[in-house]
């Protein structure tokens, strides 16, 4: 009486849900990036935990490119990721692949920026670490969808 189709259905359902989860996480990353962009232009102090040194990180030369805050690029990237993930969730599967390519780029940049905080600036900013976390989560969601797809194809 077991249903041999059940693993495939579960995997398919999960694949559909992953872009939606990615869209929500990209929104959270977008909020973080907007907050940091606004901070850059107002120079208003950001609440920073005792174990962090947000000022050193956010005012370092790595915090902007050509006078544009890095967080603004981050906000644009998160918005693009959100749009791609949402369109994928609504059935445009080709855009999910594009989302995957983008998250690989974002994760690479995030890894480099985390290294910069660790080895060059010698200080941590929790907002930047949070952004790195959301970026890697987006990447992992994409990877998970690939594995689930392979899994469902195998079955």
């Amino acid at each position: 009486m077991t249903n041999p189709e059940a693993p495939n259905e579960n995997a398919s359902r999960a694949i559909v849900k992953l872009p939606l989860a990615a869209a929500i996480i990209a929104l959270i990353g977008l909020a973080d990036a907007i907050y940091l962009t606004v901070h850059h232009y107002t120079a208003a102090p950001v609440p920073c935990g005792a174990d962090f040194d947000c000022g050193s990180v956010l005012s370092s030369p790595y915090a902007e490119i050509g006078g544009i805050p890095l967080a603004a690029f981050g906000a644009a990237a998160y918005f693009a990721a959100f749009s791609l993930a949402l369109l994928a969730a609504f059935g445009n599967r080709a855009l999910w692949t594009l989302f995957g390519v983008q998250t690989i780029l974002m994760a690479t940049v995030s890894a480099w920026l985390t290294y910069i905080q660790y080895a060059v600036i010698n200080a941590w900013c929790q907002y930047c670490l949070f952004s790195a976390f959301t970026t890697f989560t987006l990447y992992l969601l994409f990877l998970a969808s690939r594995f689930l797809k392979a899994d469902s194809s195998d079955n």
Partner: protein
Amino acid sequence: MSNANEKKSNTPILIIVGVLVLAVLGGWWLYSTSKPVTPANSNAATNKANSAAKTNTIPANAPMGAQPPNQSGSQTAMVTLEEFADFQCGSCAAAHPALNEIKSIYGSRIRFIFRNYPLSIPAHDKSYDAAVAAEAAGMQGKFWDMQNLLFTNQQAWTTAPTFRQIWKGYAEKIGLDIPKWENDIAGIAAKSRVDEDLKRGKAIGVNSTPTLFINGASIQYVEMTVPALKQVIDAELQKLAPQNQTANTAPAANTGNVNK
């Protein structure tokens, strides 16, 4: 049925546009609520100064910090620069040459105050001790010499296990009485001065280093360059000159270290 499909296909676009509008509006709201209030300006020069100077102003009732402060220039100068810095902060070391140049350009036309603001973070494990070492040097009239050596050689000692030996080398180099300097480091007076500066910084909302105030208005780190600082200082001098012309001719009250 086709209407339903069309509606469905438009839904993500509508959501995306909605999110974009919300993001722009949210960012604008955040900007307007967190943007420091700029006082009314009377002329273009002041406008320019205030565009550079973010007016996170120092409350009048803020703790005074270490007294007398480590200061150079003139106590009667119309423009006061107050820096909160941490000796292990890379940005502070990077801003140090520009601030030194500003001090030498303006001399007694400005008052420059240095406040210790060692951050309590693992990466800055020696910054409090470095501040105490500088204050102990100040007790022999050599605060600025030690401050300069600590910043210019930051990379040499910041990760070195023998950092105390390195500092001792600096103390010898600037001609300190080493036993007295070591006693002052171990004593309470130098630490109290650091603590007093920290109290002031915390009370006025300093949460990163370097934080610089020019006549009480905070300056962004990106503006801690000689040209940008000159603009702000010149505008302040120009703004205040008519009312205080005599101050321009005031003798340099304190171009050296007062922390003796």
